[in-house]
C-alpha cells in the first residue's frame, strides 16, 4: 500500500520557575483510503522524569498510529503476522493469542478508529520505556461470521507501555482501563 503521511509537529516551550515543559501536538494523517493511519495527538507536557525529544515525540506518535492500524487490520482479517512490526512482548503475545482464538471461534472484530488523544505520563531517565494514556474514540463491531453480534461506539481509555527498538518504538503493553482508574 502506498501511503503519504504528513506529520505536523507543534512544539510549545515555556519556563515556569525555570522548568521547561514541552508539549507536542502531533497529527498524523494519510491520503490512503483503505488502511489509513488513525489520527494520533500526543501531549507530552509535564513529562517526567525525562523530557521528550522532538524526534522521539514524532516517532512515538507515528508508530502508535501504525500499531493501531495493524491491530485493526489483524483483528478484522484474522492474520497476526503484521503485528510483529509494531508490537512486542506481552502486547504481541496477547494479540496473537486473541486472533488465533477468534479464528477458531469464527469471530472477527472491526475497529472504526476516530482518533487518539495520547498523553505521555512517564519517560524513564535512560530512555528505555515510556508510559502513555490514550483516550481513543472507537467504534468496535464484533461479528460471528457475517453476523454483527455487538457494537460499541465509545470513548475508551488505554494504558500503553512503549519501548524503543533499533528503528522504532514498539507497543509492549496495551491495556484498556476504566476511566475511573486515574
Amino acid at each position, binding site marked *: 500500500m502506498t501511503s503519504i503521511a504528513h506529520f505536523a509537529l507543534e512544539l510549545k516551550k515555556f519556563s515556569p520557575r525555570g522548568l521547561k515543559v514541552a508539549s507536542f501536538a502531533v497529527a498524523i494523517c494519510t491520503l490512503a483510503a483503505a488502511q489509513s493511519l488513525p489520527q494520533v495527538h500526543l501531549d507530552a507536557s509535564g513529562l517526567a522524569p525525562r523530557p521528550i525529544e522532538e524526534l522521539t515525540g514524532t516517532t512515538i506518535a507515528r508508530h502508535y498510529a501504525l500499531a493501531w492500524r495493524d491491530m485493526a487490520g489483524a483483528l478484522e482479517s484474522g492474520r497476526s503476522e503484521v503485528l510483529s512490526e509494531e508490537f512486542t512482548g506481552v502486547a504481541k503475545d496477547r*494479540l496473537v*493469542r*486473541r486472533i488465533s482464538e477468534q479464528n477458531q471461534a469464527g*469471530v472477527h472484530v472491526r475497529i472504526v478508529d476516530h482518533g487518539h488523544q495520547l498523553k505521555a505520563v512517564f519517560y524513564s*531517565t535512560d530512555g528505555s520505556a515510556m508510559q502513555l494514556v490514550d483516550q481513543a474514540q472507537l467504534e468496535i463491531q464484533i461479528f460471528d461470521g457475517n453476523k454483527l*453480534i*455487538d457494537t460499541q461506539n465509545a470513548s475508551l481509555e488505554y*494504558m500503553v*507501555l512503549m519501548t524503543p527498538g533499533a528503528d522504532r518504538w514498539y507497543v509492549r503493553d496495551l*491495556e484498556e482501563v476504566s476511566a475511573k482508574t486515574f
Partner: protein
Amino acid sequence: MQRTSHINFPLRNRLAGLALLGLLSGWARAAELRVPATVEAGKSFSIAAEGSGQATFYLVGPDHVVKRSVALGSDLVIQSSDVRAAGRYRAILCSSSCTSAGFQVEAAKPAHLSFFLHPSRVPVSTPQSIDATAFVFDQYFNLVLTPAVVDFRITPASGAGFSRQSSARRGVAWMRLDSTPHEGRVQVTAVSDNTEEARVIQQVAAEACGLRMKAIPSGNAVTLETDPVRDCSGNALPDGTVVSFTKVDREGKSTVDTPIKKGIARVEFSLHGPAQIGVACGVVLGNEVALNGKL
C-alpha cells in the same frame, strides 16, 4: 383536531395494546446478561443469563475469545483462565437477538517486578546519579494500576545498607539515588509485596583528587611518575585511566597520554633546555614541575 382524536381513539388503544403485548412477550423471551462491573484477573465468577432456551455465549477479551452454547436461565461460569488479562471484556449472548454487556478485569496483587537500574557503572559520591525504575505486574503480567509501595534496598559492598520507599503510580515506581562513597559492587533490590528483583551496579572511583607527580632525572631525559592516583574518597582510579603529561621546552609543546598501571602513571621525556611539565587526569590538573635543563 378534537374530533379526529375522538374517532381514532379505539384504534390507537388497540395499537398500544398490541405494542405492549409484543414488548412483554419479547422481554420474556430475550436473553439478558448481568455482569459484575469489575473482576480480579484470574478469578472465576458467574454471569447470570436470564431467559429460556438455548443461546450462544461469546466472551471477547484482550487475549481470549470464548464461544459456546449455553442454556438460558442458569449462571454462566467464567473460568479463571478466561480472565487472566486485564482490560475490558465483552460478554455477548445471542438467541433470537443478541444482548451484550461489558466488564473490567483488573490486575491481581503484585507478583512480578520489571526493574531497571541505570547506569551500570557510576562514580562514587555522586548525588542523584542512580536511577531506579520498577514496573509492577501481577502474576499474569498485567500492570498493577492500584497504588503499591516499592521499597528500594541498597546494599553496598562495604558500609551499611539503607532503603528508600516509593509509591508506584500507574504501575511505575522510580527514584534517584546518590551513589555511596566507596567503590565496588552495589546491589539494589526492588521489593513490593512478596516479590523482589535485584540488580547490581558497579561504583567506580570519581575524578582524581590531589593529583601529584615527581620528576626523576636521568641524563638528558626525565622520568615523571605520579603518586597513586585516587579520588577524593580515597578510591584508586582504575588501571587504564588516561593521565596526560604536557612538556613545554625549547623544542615546543608535547603531550603524552599514558594509562594508569598498578595505580600510577609513568612517562619519560627527553629535555631540550629548561622545561615546564604539567600533569592532568580528566578535568583535574595536578602539580607542575619546572626543570632548568641541567639534569
